C-alpha cells in the first residue's frame, strides 16, 4: 500500500509539474516586437487599420449591457476597423478572472479600465517584470499624439505612471480640471435645513475644532427633527470623517504622508493623539453617532432620509438625504478645520487622475493599432464619444436661445434620473477607470430645459464649494507612484497588519474602551513593533525617486 501511495504521489507531482511547465511554455514565446503590424496601420486619421483586425480585451463589466452590444463600441469598430473579443467579468470577480487568465497563460491583448482597485500597482509591476505587459513609452511617443501632449502638460502624471524601471506600462484615466476630481473621498455635508433653523449662514460655519464642537452641540440640543433622536455627525466606520477630522490636527492620512519632503507615519504622531481625544469627546457627548461602527450605508441613508443627520459623509449630499439636486444647494460642504496642532487648515485631496487604466500585453498582434485606438479617447472629441456614446444615441447637439451649443437628450423618456442607466447601456466608460480625458462638459439637458444655463445650479454649487473651500487648503498626502517589486514585497503584509491594528485601536480609543491618556504609549509601542521603520523607509525611498524623476 505504501509503495502504491508513493508511486501515486510521485505521479501526481510529475503531472502537476508537467501541466505548469506546458502552461509556462505556451506563454513564453519570444518577446513581442512592438512594431509588428505596422504595415497594416494608417498613421493618421480613421480607419486605424488598412485591413480589419480582431483583438481581445479584458475589462470589468458593470452588468448594464454586454460590451459587444454597446453602440459606442460598435460604432468605434466601424470607424477604426478594429473589432474586439470582449471578456468582461463582473466587477466583483475581475481580480480572480484576471489572475486565472494570467496564470494559465491565456490572457487577452489589452487590459482596459481596471484601475488600481482591480489591478494593484504591485501586481502591475510584477507582470511588467515578467514581460507580460509591453512598455508603452515608444508607442506613446510615436503614435499617441493626444496623450503625449497631455503628459507634457501634466508632468506629475508622467512621473506617477512611470514604473521604477523607467518605462510606462499602463495609461492613466485623466480628468481635465473638474471639481470633484480633486476629492480624495466624499466630503462631509452640513444639513442645510438645520442650519436655517438655527439661523447660521454659510459664512458662520465652523472654521476651528472648537467652533465645530459647539455647532454639533447646538444640533444635538436643538432637537431639530423633533423626535429627540437626532444624530449630529455620522459615517460608516469612520471612513470619511476620519480624514476630515485628522487633517484638522495636521494628520493627512492614517498611513504615510509627506510633510516638508519627509515621509511621516500618521497614526503614531503626537497630533494623532489629539485627534483621538477630540473624537472621543464627540463620542462621549453623544455627538458622534454611536452606531458608527455597526451601520452600513443603508442605515446611514435611512437616517438621512428621515432628516436626522447634522453632518454626514457622502459623495453628494443628496445620495444620503434622498432630496433633489436643487434642494441640496444649501447643504454646504464642511470647511477643513484648524486647531492648536494645525493653525492653518489643510485637507487631503487627490491628484485628479487614476492609474492602471489601459495596458497592452505581449499577446497583442498589433500594439500600434491598439495604442492609436486608445489615443483618440485622450482628445476632447474622443473622450466625449466614449463617455456619452455616438451622437444620436443618448444626446444630440443643439443650439439654445443664447446661441450656445448644448447637448440634449434624444428621447423624451430619457431624463436626468435615468440618464446614467441609459449611458451605461451604450458606453463602456460607466463606473470603471476609463483610459480617457474626462472633460467637464455641461450636463445633458432635456428638451424642456434646453434654454436653462449651461451648467446646472448644482454643478455650479459643487464647483464653487470645491473652489472656495477645498482647493485653497488641499494637499496631496502621498503622490501616486509605483514601488519596485522588492519594495512591494517588503510592505504588502506590513501595510495590512498596520491598518488592522491602527483601526482597531482607533475604535477602542474613540468609543472609550481604552483610555487614550494611559494607553497611548502602549499603543505607539505596539504599532512601532509591527515595523514602522521599515515601512516609512520604503515610502521615503519611493518618494525620493518620484521627486528625482
Amino acid at each position, binding site marked *: *500500500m505504501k509503495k502504491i501511495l508513493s508511486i*501515486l504521489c510521485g505521479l501526481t507531482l510529475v503531472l*502537476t509539474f508537467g*501541466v*505548469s511547465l506546458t*502552461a509556462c511554455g505556451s506563454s513564453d514565446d519570444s518577446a513581442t516586437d512592438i512594431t509588428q503590424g505596422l504595415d497594416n496601420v494608417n498613421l493618421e486619421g480613421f480607419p486605424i487599420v488598412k485591413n480589419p483586425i480582431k483583438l481581445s480585451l479584458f475589462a470589468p*463589466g*458593470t*452588468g448594464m449591457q454586454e460590451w459587444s452590444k454597446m453602440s459606442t463600441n460598435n460604432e468605434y469598430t466601424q470607424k477604426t476597423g478594429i473589432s474586439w473579443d470582449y*471578456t*468582461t*467579468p*463582473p*466587477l*466583483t*470577480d475581475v481580480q*480572480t*478572472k484576471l489572475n*486565472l487568465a494570467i*496564470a*494559465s497563460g*491565456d490572457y487577452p491583448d489589452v487590459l482596459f479600465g481596471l*484601475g*488600481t*482597485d482591480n489591478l494593484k500597482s504591485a501586481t502591475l509591476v510584477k507582470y511588467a517584470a515578467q514581460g507580460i505587459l509591453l512598455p508603452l513609452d515608444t508607442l506613446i511617443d510615436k503614435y499617441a499624439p493626444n496623450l503625449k501632449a497631455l503628459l507634457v502638460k501634466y508632468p506629475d502624471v508622467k512621473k506617477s505612471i512611470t514604473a521604477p524601471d523607467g518605462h510606462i506600462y499602463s495609461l492613466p*484615466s485623466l480628468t481635465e480640471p473638474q471639481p*470633484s*476630481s480633486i*476629492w*480624495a*473621498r*466624499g466630503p462631509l455635508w452640513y444639513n442645510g435645513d438645520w442650519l436655517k433653523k438655527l439661523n447660521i449662514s454659510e459664512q458662520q460655519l465652523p472654521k476651528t475644532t472648537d467652533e465645530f464642537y459647539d455647532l454639533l452641540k447646538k444640533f444635538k440640543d436643538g432637537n431639530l427633527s423633533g423626535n429627540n433622536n437626532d444624530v449630529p455627525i455620522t459615517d*460608516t*466606520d469612520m*471612513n*470619511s470623517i476620519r480624514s476630515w477630522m485628522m487633517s484638522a490636527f495636521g494628520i493627512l492620512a492614517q498611513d504615510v504622508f509627506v510633510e516638508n519632503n519627509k515621509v511621516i507615519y500618521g497614526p503614531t504622531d503626537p497630533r494623532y493623539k489629539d485627534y483621538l481625544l477630540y473624537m472621543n469627546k464627540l463620542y462621549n457627548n453623544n455627538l458622534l453617532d454611536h452606531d458608527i461602527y455597526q451601520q*452600513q*450605508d*443603508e*442605515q446611514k*441613508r*435611512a*437616517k438621512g*432620509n*428621515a432628516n436626522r443627520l447634522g453632518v454626514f*459623509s*457622502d*459623495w*453628494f449630499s443628496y*445620495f444620503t438625504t434622498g432630496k433633489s439636486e436643487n434642494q441640496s444647494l444649501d447643504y454646504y460642504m464642511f470647511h477643513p478645520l484648524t486647531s492648536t496642532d494645525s493653525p492653518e487648515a489643510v485637507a487631503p485631496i*487627490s491628484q485628479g487622475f*487614476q492609474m492602471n487604466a489601459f495596458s497592452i500585453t505581449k499577446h497583442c498582434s498589433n500594439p500600434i493599432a491598439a495604442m492609436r485606438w486608445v489615443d483618440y479617447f485622450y482628445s476632447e472629441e474622443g473622450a466625449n464619444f466614449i463617455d456619452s456614446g455616438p451622437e444620436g444615441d443618448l444626446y444630440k447637439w443643439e443650439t439654445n436661445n443664447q446661441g450656445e451649443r448644448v447637448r440634449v437628450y434624444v428621447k423624451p423618456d430619457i431624463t436626468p434620473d435615468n440618464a*446614467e442607466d441609459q449611458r*451605461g447601456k451604450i458606453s463602456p*466608460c*460607466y*463606473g470603471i*477607470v*476609463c483610459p480617457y480625458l*474626462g472633460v467637464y462638459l455641461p450636463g445633458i439637458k432635456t428638451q424642456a430645459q434646453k434654454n436653462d444655463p449651461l451648467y446646472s445650479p448644482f454643478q455650479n454649487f459643487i464647483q464653487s464649494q470645491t473652489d472656495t473651500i477645498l482647493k485653497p487648503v488641499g494637499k496631496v498626502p502621498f503622490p501616486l507612484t509605483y514601488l519596485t517589486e522588492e519594495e512591494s514585497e517588503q510592505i504588502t503584509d506590513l501595510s495590512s497588519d498596520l491598518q488592522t491594528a491602527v483601526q482597531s485601536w482607533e475604535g477602542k480609543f474613540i468609543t472609550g474602551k481604552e483610555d487614550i491618556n494611559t494607553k497611548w504609549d502602549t499603543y505607539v509601542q505596539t504599532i512601532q513593533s509591527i515595523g514602522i521603520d521599515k515601512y516609512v523607509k520604503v515610502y521615503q525611498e519611493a518618494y525620493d525617486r518620484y521627486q528625482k524623476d
Partner: protein
Amino acid sequence: MSNKNQASTRDKLFSLIVYTLLGLALIIVLYPLIYIISASISSPTSVGSGKMWLWPVDITFSGYQVIFKNADIWNGYKNTIFYTVLGTSINLFVTLPCAYALSRRNFMAKKWFMKMLVITMFISGGLIPTFILIKALGMYNTVWALVIPNAASVYNIVVTRTFFQSTIPDELEESAAVDGASDLRIFWQIVLPLSMPIVAVMALFYGVGQWNGYFNAMIYLSDRSLYPLQLILREILVVQDMSSNTTNFSTTSAEMLQQKQQLVDVIKYGVMIVSTLPVIMVYPFLQRFFVKGVMIGSIKG
C-alpha cells in the same frame, strides 16, 4: 396518590420545558424567514431605519416589479434550472451505479477502487491546473464545465455505497441471478426501486449544491448569457460600500454605485425569496425520504 401527582407535575414540567425549548428553536428558525418576507414587501427606508422588524411596514411591491422586469434574473433562472436538472441527472447517473458496484462483495478490486476514490478527497489538482485542464478539454465557457468536473462526489458515493451494503442483502441479488436476471437488470429492477430513499437524498444533496453553486460558474464561464442565477445575483447584490473607497474614485463611479445601491435596496430581500423558493418548495416532498436515507447511510463501514 401523592406519588402519582408528583409524577404528573414532573411530566408537566418536562413537557413545559420541551415546549419552551422547541418554541425558542421555532422562533430562532422562523424569525429570519418572516423578516425576509416582510422586508421584501416593505419600503427600503423603513427596513434600513429599523422600523420594520417583524411585519411589513409601508407595503410596496416595487421590489418584485423590478425583479420580474429584470431580464438578466430570468435568464439566470432559466440557466440555473437547466444546470440543476442536467447536473443532478449526471450526478445520479454516475453516483448510483458506482456506489452499487462498490457495495457488492464479489466485485474484484473493490478495495483498490475505494482507496483511489478516497485519495481524491484529500488531494486535488488545485485551482489553476484544474482551470488549465478544463480549458484544454474545450469545456471553458460551456455548460459542461459546470456539470462534468463535479459529476461525482466521493463523499456521496460512500454514503450511497453504505446504504446499498446495509439494505440490499447479497441473497436478494443471488436469487435474482438464479432466476436469470442480468447484472443490469438486477440493478434497475430490483435494487433501485428498493433504494428510493437514497436516490431522493442524493438528488436533494446534489440538486441543492448545483442550485447554489456559483464558484465554478464564476471561474469557467465568460459569456453572460450562460450565467446561472447565483452569479447574476452576486453581480447585482454585492455592492462595494461607497464610503469604504479611499482613493481612486471618481464621480462616475460614485454615481454608478449610488444607482446600484438604490436598486439593491429595493430588490435585495425579494431576490432572496425568488431564488430560494424552488428549493424550499421541493424540500417537503423529499423530506420523508430524507430522514430515513441519511440515517441509514450514517453508519459507514
